[in-house]
């Protein structure tokens, strides 16, 4: 076997700490190595051409490229090898950059390590087997999880391109948090006015199957071939019969038992309700937890008033299965809840701000509802405790954000902007009111964003104070806010009528559970992880699963929409061909040696191991052995490590290859 070794300097990146010529020279003497050379940029065209030329000239059988991480350029070098007639799986990448030159200072030690690393790769490549890629079919349908603005945008884009979409939303209506907002920054246009047409478009789109009040329960399969089980929760109202007239809602006698979560608990709702007047679909839901019927079987006024006989108290949850090829995650965010005390929460909470015991200390979304013309106060600024117009409002930024101690280390990104908007909206309506904003930094990068904040300060007279608030106490209906202006170096105490906390944007509480269901990684805060922070921000590391909006990290509306369109485009790229190529890293059982203990079957996360009967000529079963369905196998190799007799091997990472690497240490 003739092996070629190619050491890349990566400009200075590897060359600075690894003596590349010396590595190349040392590798010349490794058994089996025919040629070993170094070059400035191996991934460049001349670099690749050099590899190709050497392969052809020296009749190489396999190559080792010492360069950056295989996650970066493995594909590039495999392509080059294929062009020169080598099977792409006879290419090994030695990660000299991320795992050597970048993490070490000592040139001598790093060079020694580099030589050893290449030696390990050479030993592995000797045992590599030529493999052929596996082709799998593609189901050209998309599942979008989450019906906020990101999910709506993604669904519309995919559907408008002519592919079917299943849009799943766990609430009774699509619209998400955007439907709760009063106005949007930096234009101050009405949020619902721009959103509702999109919601209706989704509802009427022939290619979109809308499933509200539904949740994804199970995801099986893999890129191009997912089988998704969706739980359609019982509304107790027949969706086909209901016309959305709303009579049941107006007649329902239970008016004060349940808080209206759309109004951020600032108002009540009946037992049968639609979240908000413009809900899509405009079909109510009966809340079992408060409805009298579910308590004692009585009432039933809604049944009497419904002309369409749409009320069905006995309706059960339905499980629906959908086949899709791509999944777009658009599950959005929640606001950090300051009501939480340490015991029952992952975050520690703000006791110094009263853990939410003061009624007039509200969060950003509550203030949106108070400011909204369709909100509980019909757009009048009234404080929750006594309905009086607040004459002095204190806004506190970074509550839960940038707080390692009681919240999260990250910046929630949108609070600077929406706080400026809040203060502005307040000053526009309450001209004699005073608005104070406690901030640490103003982060207003974006088109017309900083101008917007300046407008709040310069034109609307909002007072910005640089400092965090230490404590809020209540005295005779006033809220004593103790802060420090760190610019003036002076302690400041404000007696406010109302306090608005710009609380952190956090991941949905069940985001990690959903991530586990779908099989994608998430960070310590519960936000879904992208495959690469710069170059693959839309994809998850799991093939066929894409991310849109604030489920990946805090985002504002334009960013979420942009990301949603990008995710839609990614799904459509997948649908561009009828077959998908998959790496042939799959397990294979040796039928002769398998003893049929089926430990592999027990440990396989994908159910890819099947039972095969071995029969005699006369049809008598003499034994049962394991067989790997390569369409289902994802190549983790858990079976190979579990097999006691070592009768199953993972192509591309077989035990011989690993032993060779160990031996080369």
């Amino acid at each position, binding site marked *: 076997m003739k092996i070629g070794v190619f050491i890349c300097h990566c400009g200075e990146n590897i060359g600075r700490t690894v003596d590349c010529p010396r590595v190349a020279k040392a590798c010349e003497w490794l058994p089996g190595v025919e040629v070993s050379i170094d070059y400035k940029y191996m991934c460049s065209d001349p670099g690749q051409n050099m590899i190709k030329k050497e392969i052809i000239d020296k009749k190489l059988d396999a190559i080792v490229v010492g360069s950056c991480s295989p996650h970066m350029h493995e594909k590039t070098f495999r392509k080059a090898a294929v062009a020169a007639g080598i099977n792409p799986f006879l290419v090994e990448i030695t990660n000299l950059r991320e795992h050597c030159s970048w993490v070490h200072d000592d040139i001598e030690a790093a060079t020694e390590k580099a030589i050893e690393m290449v030696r390990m790769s050479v030993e592995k490549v000797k045992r590599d087997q030529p493999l052929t890629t596996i082709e799998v079919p593609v189901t050209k349908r998309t599942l979008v999880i989450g019906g906020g603005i990101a999910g709506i945008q993604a669904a519309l884009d995919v559907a408008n391109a002519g592919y079917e979409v299943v849009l799943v939303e766990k609430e009774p209506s699509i619209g998400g948090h955007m439907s709760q907002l009063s106005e949007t920054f930096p234009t101050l246009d009405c949020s619902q006015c721009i959103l509702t047409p999109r919601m209706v478009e989704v509802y009427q789109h022939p290619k979109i199957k809308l499933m509200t009040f539904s949740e994804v329960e199970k995801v099986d399969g893999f890129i191009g071939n997912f089988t998704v089980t969706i739980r359609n929760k019982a509304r107790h109202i027949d969706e086909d019969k209901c016309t959305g007239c709303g009579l049941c809602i107006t007649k329902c006698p239970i008016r004060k038992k349940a808080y209206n979560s759309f109004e951020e608990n600032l108002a009540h709702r009946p037992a049968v309700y639609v979240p908000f007047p413009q809900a899509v679909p405009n079909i109510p839901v009966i809340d079992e937890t408060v409805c009298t019927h579910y308590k004692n079987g009585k009432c039933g006024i809604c049944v009497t008033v419904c002309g369409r006989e749409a009320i069905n108290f006995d309706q059960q949850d339905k499980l629906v299965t959908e086949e899709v090829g791509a999944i777009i995650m658009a599950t959005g965010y929640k606001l950090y809840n300051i009501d939480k*005390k340490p015991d029952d929460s992952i975050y520690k909470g703000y006791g110094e701000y009263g853990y939410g015991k003061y009624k007039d200390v509200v969060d950003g979304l509550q203030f949106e509802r108070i400011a909204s013309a369709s909100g509980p106060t019909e757009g009048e600024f009234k404080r929750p405790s006594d309905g009086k117009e607040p004459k002095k409002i204190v806004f506190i930024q970074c509550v839960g954000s940038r707080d390692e101690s009681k919240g999260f280390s990250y910046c929630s990104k949108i609070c600077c902007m929406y706080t400026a908007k809040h203060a502005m909206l307040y000053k526009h309506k309450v001209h004699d009111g005073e608005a104070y904003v406690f901030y640490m930094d103003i982060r207003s990068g974006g088109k017309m964003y900083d101008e917007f904040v300046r407008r709040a300060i310069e034109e609307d007279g909002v007072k910005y104070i640089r400092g965090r608030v230490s404590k809020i106490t*209540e*005295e005779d209906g006033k809220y004593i806010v103790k802060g420090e202006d760190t610019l003036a170096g002076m302690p400041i105490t404000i007696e406010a009528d109302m306090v608005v906390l710009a609380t952190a944007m956090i991941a949905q509480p069940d985001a990690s559970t959903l991530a586990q269901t779908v099989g994608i990684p998430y960070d310590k805060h519960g936000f879904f992880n992208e495959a690469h922070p710069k170059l693959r921000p839309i994809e998850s590391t799991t093939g066929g699963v894409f991310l849109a909006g604030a489920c990946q990290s805090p985002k504002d509306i334009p960013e979420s929409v942009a990301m949603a369109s990008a995710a839609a485009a990614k799904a459509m790229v997948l649908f561009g061909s009828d077959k998908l190529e998959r790496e042939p890293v799959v397990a294979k059982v040796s039928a002769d040696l398998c003893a049929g203990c089926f430990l592999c079957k027990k440990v396989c996360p994908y159910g890819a191991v099947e039972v095969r009967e071995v029969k005699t000529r006369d049809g008598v079963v003499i034994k049962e052995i394991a067989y790997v369905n390569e369409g289902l196998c994802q190549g983790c190799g858990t079976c190979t490590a579990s097999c006691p007799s070592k009768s199953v091997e993972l192509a591309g990472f077989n035990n011989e290859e690993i032993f060779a690497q160990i031996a080369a240490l």
Partner: protein
Amino acid sequence: MEAILKVGYFPGCSQTGTAREYDISLRKVVENLGASFDEVKDWSCCGATSAHVTNHKLASALAMRNVMLAEQQGLDDMVAPCAACYNRLVSSQYEMKKHPEVKQEVESVLETKFQKDIKVMNLIELFMKIGLEKITENRKEELKSLNVACYYGCLLVRPAEITKFDDAEQPTSMEKLVELTGAKTVDWNSKVECCGAAHSIARRDIVVELSKKIIDDAKRHGANVMVVACPMCHTNLDMRQTIMKRVFPEYKEFPVLYLTELLGLALGMDEKELGIDLHTVKFNYNELAAEKATV
């Protein structure tokens, strides 16, 4: 017959002087509840606060000397009724656990090796260990006329990651204890505000101002007595009322009790027995109850 619960006891300097009544009432109450103390023999000052504000090595070593003695005496836990002592002891233990170099240094100064993890308790944790039901069982008197402002001060609950026994901002454990006596508690703002503690002698101006703010807040929220669990707080809040009276002519005296004294009253002991007569501001439950009844 139930075995008598034995608990290690680190009185702290104040307990032998300015806070003598705290010591008296604590011992009486604990005995009444069927537990007994095993005093750390030859204990010395914990170092609060002068040591740790001027020499961090000295501070750790002084505090840990007492933990060392407790360990040598075979104790598993000990109660430090003074919040400052408690804080110094647990903080020093925490530092040693977190930073091996501190442990090494303290061990070399004290010429010892720490083997055990002695649990240092504050007053509230002590009663939790003894069992809250014991208080209800042995209660003789329901102190219905009291509206108590529970004052935790700074050092009992802070820093939360070290003391780990209650919420640092909105603690409630003392309220739970006080309510067992039949007294009512008030929700007020200054539970964990600082009284000026260490400045008691050198900067009495500060102490008087801070303490008065706290007392005013308690009064404003309808309390007729304040309960504390720290001799330093008591010195500032009770004794400094003499100055408050002198500087603010309208100032009305406000009784400040140790938590143990309140429990003692509920357990049927009288004010004299508990040493309440040693306070600057007079307190007599029956008088207060009678006064309240007439209002």
